[in-house]
């Protein structure tokens, strides 16, 4: 029996010819990632355990993104701790205000992560980089500390679910609608401990931003990782960007999958996940009149350039409905700059939206758009748990940038038109 794509990457990094699901291995890491919330805990553990140096200063990435520019004194102290650690260990991939972006948009954009990598990050959405053909998974701060000290991590080799994609998305749909549809099908623990391997003829029609969005939310189905095969689009994206040479792995013909699920991209419709679980999905067209108070377009899930373009195409020359706060957050400084240069920011402001510098802010109820009791938000973010964006009696509806932007204009959750 052959290996899945994930298993092949893990076997390579463990120095083994073959691994099987359930096997415990120790694998070498290409990148160890942390942010301004998880790194301080990791630094404390690293220091407490008596480690005094990192395994490789070029293989650690620390990104200040959750609460920056610092939202309060305590957040400032956490950023300071990260900054001092990065400085004292000469961490080469340290991203502070001015250079930073939301980590999972930033690292692929900057070429820090690449195909064939084995990556851990103390952030659950680290699974995003599977879009590049890497094994990448979220861990906690102690794993980050151990990874920084040793350059290795232990893994239980996962089994996999294969998603066989065919066809092509309709113009009012994007990767977000694909992943929300899948989570609606299999549930928030439908891929618990497993890999989600996306494959099939339909892959070639999906942009890199779509693939990054799809892998980003693999964790929302409980998965260990999501992964796409490396094709021409991947190589085109990585070319001139990757700091290291990409390594191409592919699943064996006779790889074993626990399940194969066929997804016809033509049949995907604009999809919304209603409170309070990402699996609670419905077609946007069937939701009826759900009045909203706020719209958030951004996050590690949907703050990339194509997401900004989607929002621009809907909002240009239009007005955000009275009483609606529309907050747009480009995910990196490069995307922010491109939005300025292309006139998107002007169009957003003219429409009555606000545009923030990159931050995770509202997605996790940190700052920059917190909801009051009884308020409702449609967001392109990734979680709609109780209290996620503010008050425990507020509500978050998850959707694509097109659906969120269309809803900003009407003030109700709205099925986007086929532009």
């Amino acid at each position: 029996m052959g290996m899945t794509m994930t298993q092949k990457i893990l076997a390579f990094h463990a120095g083994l010819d073959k691994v099987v699901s359930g096997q415990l291995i120790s694998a070498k890491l290409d990148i160890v990632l942390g942010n301004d919330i998880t790194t301080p805990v990791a630094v404390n553990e690293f220091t407490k355990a008596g480690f005094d140096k990192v395994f490789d200063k070029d293989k650690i990435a620390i990104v200040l993104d959750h609460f920056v520019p610092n939202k309060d004194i305590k957040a400032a102290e956490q950023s300071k701790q990260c900054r001092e650690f990065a400085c004292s260990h000469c961490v080469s991939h340290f991203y502070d205000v001015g250079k930073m972006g939301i980590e999972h948009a930033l690292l692929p954009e900057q070429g820090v992560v690449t195909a064939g990598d084995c990556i851990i990050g103390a952030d659950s959405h680290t699974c995003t980089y599977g879009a590049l053909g890497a094994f990448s998974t979220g861990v906690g701060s102690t794993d980050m500390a151990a990874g920084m000290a040793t350059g290795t991590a232990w893994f239980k080799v996962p089994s996999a679910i294969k998603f066989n994609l065919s066809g092509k998305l309709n113009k009012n749909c994007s990767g977000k609608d694909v992943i929300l549809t899948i989570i609606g099908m299999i549930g928030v623990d439908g891929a618990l401990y497993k890999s989600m391997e996306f494959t099939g003829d339909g892959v070639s029609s999906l942009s890199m931003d779509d693939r990054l969005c799809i892998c980003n939310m693999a964790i929302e189905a409980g998965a260990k990782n999501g992964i796409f095969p490396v094709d021409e689009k991947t190589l085109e994206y990585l070319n001139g960007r990757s700091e290291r040479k990409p390594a191409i792995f592919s699943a064996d013909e006779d790889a074993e999958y626990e399940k194969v699920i066929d997804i016809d991209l033509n049949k995907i419709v604009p999809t919304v996940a209603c409170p309070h679980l990402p699996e609670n999905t419905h077609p946007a067209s069937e939701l009826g009149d759900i009045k909203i108070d706020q719209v958030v377009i951004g996050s590690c899930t949907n703050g990339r350039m194509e997401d900004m373009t989607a929002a621009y195409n809907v909002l240009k020359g239009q007005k955000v409905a009275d009483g609606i706060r529309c907050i747009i957050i480009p995910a990196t400084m490069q995307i922010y700059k491109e939005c300025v240069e292309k006139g998107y920011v002007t169009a957003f402001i003219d429409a009555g939206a606000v545009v923030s510098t990159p931050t995770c802010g509202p997605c996790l109820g940190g700052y920059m758009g917190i909801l009051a009791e009884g308020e409702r938000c449609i967001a392109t973010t990734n979680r709609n748990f109780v209290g996620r964006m503010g008050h425990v009696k507020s509500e978050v509806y998850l959707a694509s940038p097109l659906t969120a932007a269309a809803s900003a204009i009407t003030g109700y959750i709205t099925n986007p038109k086929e532009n």
Partner: protein
Amino acid sequence: MNVKGKVFKYPDNVDTDVIIPARYLNTSNAKELALHCMEDIDTEFVKKVSVGDVMVAGWNFGCGSSREHAPLVIKTCGTGCVIAKSFARIFYRNAINIGLPILECEQAAEEINAGDEVSVDFDTGLITDITTGKTYKAQPFPEFIQNIIRKGGLLASLKGE
């Protein structure tokens, strides 16, 4: 190793945002964070929990964020053990790494009631509901993981190598 205490019962898909809301994550001080443990689904928990008490929950406990603050606040509150039908994978890993005892046992998680007195023997995986007199057997950890726990967590086990 054993714990004995009363049960706090929770549903399926308890996520890390309700275990410790992100609005408090501007500090990594465990004692300060622990004051808000479970706040968004159970405001009484912090007031009522005693050392050794046991959380019992449904499927996919600890889903969502990778924040290690979640198992840390549960442990810091004095909780002796979490029993669930299943755990989200990052939470599972974090709990082991920081030394919060967790057990997967579907039947126990189904049948044990809120407020019951429960004892747990980690060496054997035996869960006893003292109130009802019923006993349950949880799956023991693989040897590799038992070794991490015996050495006092992941970093301590690495230093020992």
